[in-house]
């Protein structure tokens, strides 16, 4: 099977072309002295954008390294420096790539020099990785705390956009809002640039618009059978714009994606015309082998119609009302909870599975996931069979393709087809 998968949507292809062009231009700007931030996916990028400071998303770069089959090499470079190559790989691969001395081997010309690393401390490894950036590359870091709220809001997705103060919790919002002000002060001091409040509010509004288009696309795919596309298309179509969240391009890309999905649905186009089974992939994308997701279409008519990327864009990012900086804190202070906190995530996955008519779930377990047991349990109790796979989404070294294909095939035959 092709590692890249077969892509059908022009919006997905266009997003990838845009990203390449953007990256090439960024490399030139950084070479000319522009300061560049490397930020984790759950760090508030909107602040950088409001100050005209470019940023690369740590996990996006890791996915590029994985897709180009470079991740094992970069993990090896970390191991050579005495770091573990078997923990938090997804967050560490970028550092490994920064140790690359042979740029000819690096994807897309390599990671430009980083001026600041920004992270949120949602695992015990994150602060260590930040420290390693400093030790190895002299890169200063800014870390956000990952506070834990003791409440378990019911059906958070129905309330988060407008009642975010209550859903996220005042204590966490106070903390992250104060931290955002510290980050802004640091950036102003480092770069000489000023935080532009008006620009910031415009960015927040564009980001909300973008996610509304994602929401429409998600809802349409959920209720359309056969599905007009699979996740090999929806993932890049939604995620590349996500890293340009708050731009007109990002908003327009999300709209183009929706328009294309709507046209495909109206025209009866399908990822798999012979769709018989709708599958859900829970967990991070298998960046080194997206083609894997399409393997089961021919034999079983089994289509992966759902991944978290479009769904969390639809449900997790919109914030309306309130003080702008605080609303940004509300976007990220609980972000990891939506996808991986027991009592938050499990109900959401069940809701998504039901709305999409999902008949089987393949659940990629990562060691960092707090909610795997509860998610699988909730789905099984809802009558939706789950296959758990223990693998790393960015590190192909332990990926046994034949074994995992076999397991999913047996799962489909024994638990999905027989329902």
């Amino acid at each position, binding site marked *: 099977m092709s590692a890249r998968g077969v892509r059908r949507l022009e919006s997905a292809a266009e997003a990838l072309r845009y990203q390449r062009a953007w990256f090439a231009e960024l490399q030139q700007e950084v070479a000319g002295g522009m300061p560049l931030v490397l930020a984790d996916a759950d760090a508030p990028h909107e602040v950088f954008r409001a100050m005209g400071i470019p940023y690369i998303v740590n996990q996006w770069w890791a996915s590029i390294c994985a897709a180009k089959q470079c991740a094992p090499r970069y993990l090896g470079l970390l191991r050579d*420096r*005495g*770091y*573990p190559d*078997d*923990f*938090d790989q997804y967050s560490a691969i970028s550092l490994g790539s920064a140790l690359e001395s042979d740029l000819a081997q690096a994807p897309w010309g390599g990671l430009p020099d980083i001026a600041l690393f920004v992270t949120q*401390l949602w*695992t*015990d*490894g994150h*602060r*260590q*990785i930040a*420290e*390693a950036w*400093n*030790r190895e590359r002299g890169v200063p870091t800014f*870390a956000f*705390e990952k*506070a*834990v709220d*003791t409440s*378990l809001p019911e059906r958070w997705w129905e309330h988060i956009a407008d009642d975010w103060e209550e859903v996220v919790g005042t*204590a966490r919002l*106070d*903390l992250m809002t*104060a*931290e955002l002000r*510290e980050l802004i002060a640091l950036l102003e001091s480092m770069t000489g640039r000023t935080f532009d409040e008006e620009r910031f509010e415009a960015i927040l509004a564009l980001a909300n618009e973008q996610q509304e288009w994602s929401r429409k696309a998600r809802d349409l795919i959920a209720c359309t059978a056969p599905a007009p596309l699979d996740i090999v298309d929806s993932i890049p179509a939604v995620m590349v714009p996500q890293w340009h969240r708050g731009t007109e391009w990002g908003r327009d890309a999300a709209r183009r994606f929706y328009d294309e999905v709507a046209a495909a649905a109206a025209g009866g186009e399908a990822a798999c015309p012979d769709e018989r089974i709708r599958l859900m992939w829970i967990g991070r994308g298998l960046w080194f082998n997206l083609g894997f997701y399409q393997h089961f279409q021919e034999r079983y008519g089994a289509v992966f119609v759902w991944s978290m990327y479009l769904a969390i864009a639809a449900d997790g990012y919109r914030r309306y009302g309130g003080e702008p900086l605080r609303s940004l804190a509300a976007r990220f202070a609980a972000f990891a909870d939506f996808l991986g*906190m*027991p*009592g938050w995530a*499990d109900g959401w996955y069940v809701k998504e599975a039901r709305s999409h008519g999902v008949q089987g779930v393949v659940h990629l*377990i*990562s*060691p*960092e*996931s*707090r*909610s*795997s*047991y*509860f998610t699988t*349990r909730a789905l099984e109790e809802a009558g939706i069979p789950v296959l758990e796979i*223990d693998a790393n989404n960015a590190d192909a070294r332990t990926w046994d393709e034949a074994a995992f294909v076999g397991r999913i095939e047996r799962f489909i035959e024994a638990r999905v087809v027989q329902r």
Partner: protein
Amino acid sequence: MTTLELLSAYADERFTRAATRRDSGQPVVGYVGADVPRELIEAAGFLPLRLAPTVVGSSAEADAILGPGVDEATRLVLAGILEGRYPIDALVLCHDSEHTVRLYTSLRALARLEPARPLPPLHFFDLLHLPRATTAAYNLARIGELAGQLSAWAGRSIADPQIGEAIALANQNRRLVTRLDALRREGRVTGVRFLGAVAAGTAMPAAEHNELLTRVLAGPLSPLAEPVRRVFMLGSAHPSPVVYDALESQGALVVGEDHSWGAPLADGLVDETQSPLEGLSERYHRGSAVALAHDPAGRAARAAREAVAAGADVCVAWLRKGDEALAWRLPGERAALSSSGLPLVVLRHQALRVDAQASRELVEAVLQR
């Protein structure tokens, strides 16, 4: 039996001893993690009982709930909670590690999914550790919440003078443990006995522990035989002395450590000139070696200093399976130690239960270099 042996014996059967106290009418609040302020629990009239793994029975359900990303020690604690093996009336958990957070979030979810399941009332003490005023402000509010929850469980308010008194006893306890640690460095107390003394203190009132420690320090404590190696332990926490025993039974002496079941637990006094809650908040946020564990560079520098001060001639980074995050510290620790001329032996993916083969490999790696 010497007082040190008595303390070790108490540590070995601490949960049975706590059960006896509870049966006699002493309410017990269990806690998980070194960030929980024992003094606040004592001020509320409870016996604070730090939970540690017990190895009775199967942990299959706990393993399934928490998954392999959580270390075995925490999974065994969950197994003990699920089977009601700890004699506790309530449970406080903290943010000292991702393992403890996941233990809390899983218990919370189980309590909601299975309300008939007998689980203790829970409180999560979300003390955080970045060295910023923003985190300090957050922590002060959390400690106020913890005091409120303990008051609610106790059915009465906890007044400042009561907290102050508990702090004074806890500070005295820290001083006494530090003096015991000094005797260990002099070669008069083994690492096994030191860990036992510390562990006993996590399961009895501070005043009682202080009395026993005072008795130990009054001596006499004869010098031990000259050790073949003086070992400083880094890496995973050791809730039991089994690894220390494997080394010391072969002639080594574990002269120090940087984990939260050893000497760092006694580091850093609460400032008694501040209001009690502010003093506690500051000490647990940034004012102790345990708090410093969250600062990779600071921890490495401290470990190197302490290893030299303890007269170590080798450092061992013993990392349990599930504690892979600690492996990210190794280059920093290695650099800090090498500038002090101390070699570092690294043992990763270790099991909590040290079998004969693991013991042999440990001895070979550390003592036969």
